[in-house]
């Protein structure tokens, strides 16, 4: 292996858990599976505020943000994450957003309207998430080169 020549773009993904969920097994499984799919995954741990998530996304210059939530507060917290991101000039047109955890189907439309292109419930095959990222990332209109 050589430096540079193979320094092809590695997809950088932030996996974050907003709110007060106490456990993060799902998030860790997703993080590990994306690593195994060749991505660089930044995992921030539990109990993240929207500001912390947005700041991590900015500093880490990620291509993708995945939010995992189990508490049922997604319609409270996701808009606040999206706002905190846009305060920093990050929009769903240049960073790919997806979410997972316990998100009832009736809320999927609302979540999608916030800019989350993918919603993955319990039992999702993790390979599906990796393919989703590879397919969707190139279609972002304002993705930085």
């Amino acid at each position, binding site marked *: 292996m050589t430096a540079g020549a193979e320094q092809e773009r590695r997809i950088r993904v932030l996996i974050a858990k907003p709110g007060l969920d106490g456990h993060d097994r799902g998030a860790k499984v997703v993080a590990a599976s994306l690593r*195994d799919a060749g991505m660089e995954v930044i995992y921030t*741990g539990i109990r993240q505020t929207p500001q912390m998530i947005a700041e991590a996304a900015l*500093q880490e210059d990620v291509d993708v943000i995945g939010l995992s939530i189990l508490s049922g507060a997604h319609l409270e917290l996701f808009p606040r994450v999206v706002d905190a991101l846009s305060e920093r000039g990050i929009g769903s047109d240049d960073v790919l957003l997806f979410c997972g955890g316990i998100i009832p189907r009736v809320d999927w439309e609302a979540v999608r309207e916030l800019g989350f292109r993918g919603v993955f419930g319990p039992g999702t095959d993790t390979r599906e998430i990796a393919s989703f990222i590879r397919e969707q990332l190139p279609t972002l209109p304002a993705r930085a080169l």
Partner: protein
Amino acid sequence: MTASSALAAGGDLADGIARGDRRALARAITHVERDDATGRAVLAALYPRTGRAQSVGVTGSAGVGKSTLVARLAAEQRRRGRSVGIVAVDPSSPFSHGALLGDRIRMQELTSDPGVFLRSMASRGHLGGLAESASGVVDVLDAAGYDVVLVETVGAGQDEVEVASATQTTVLVTSPAAGDEIQSMKAGLMEVAQLLVVNKADLAGADTAVQQLLALLAIAAPRAWDPPVVKAVARSGEGVEELADRIDEHQRHVRDARHADAERRTLVEAQLVTLVTAALSRRALAEARRSGALGSLIDEVVARRRDPRSAAEALLAGIAATAAGDPAED
């Protein structure tokens, strides 16, 4: 991307960083890490503004408490009114080339502090590549105005020795449990560390570990700076203030007019050696892969018709034969 547009993009990012635009800073780091044309343009534009920050590398084996110590040290620097940039390096998987970067978990309290910029970096397993990009990232954070830049690297191998060339002060962290390891540290990191920390000093054996380190230092070649040994308990913060003081002392030493120039020459030489090594192997191998020369040379060596050294010479000769210009431009 063409060379001129990369130059323009690099210039824009450098301007953004000068204005304090944190997103431009984050983006610039990505390009530097990727070692693409934009990244090189950013570095060229920023380099005259570097040299203000105190850069500190923290290394040691897995499990000695580096992340916790770095978090404490960063908090101590904040208490002293200094802004802090942190580069936390974790290994890439040799199989998938992916990485799971979890340093933000252990640095939770710092992540909502606007005076701290934390960037996770995967080692990417490239020959010389880690040190190459780490020194570039340190330069970018330095030029962005961070007073202190901390680089945390895992392990105690060759890569980490090279990373030491990216920072002025290298701190080697061990723990009382790492007694055997200290014994085996005869060469390598001991030579590049300017400060030694025995972390988890509340555990039994801490004083023995300190004695072992001092004994090893006593037999090292005499040098202008004698590495002090600091006992610390990162979990409680004990010893962290002393560590920060010692780092300041070493920084005064490297910036002392009597030998600042020599210190800096040594650092720059190490950087150039790393960069040239990486660039040479990149050029030689990329061209040989493209032309198929690499495959045929491997065939010849496998069949024992040629020896590896002359095959390597042939690869190097190939660089001279091709036009200058880096194949890994974008």
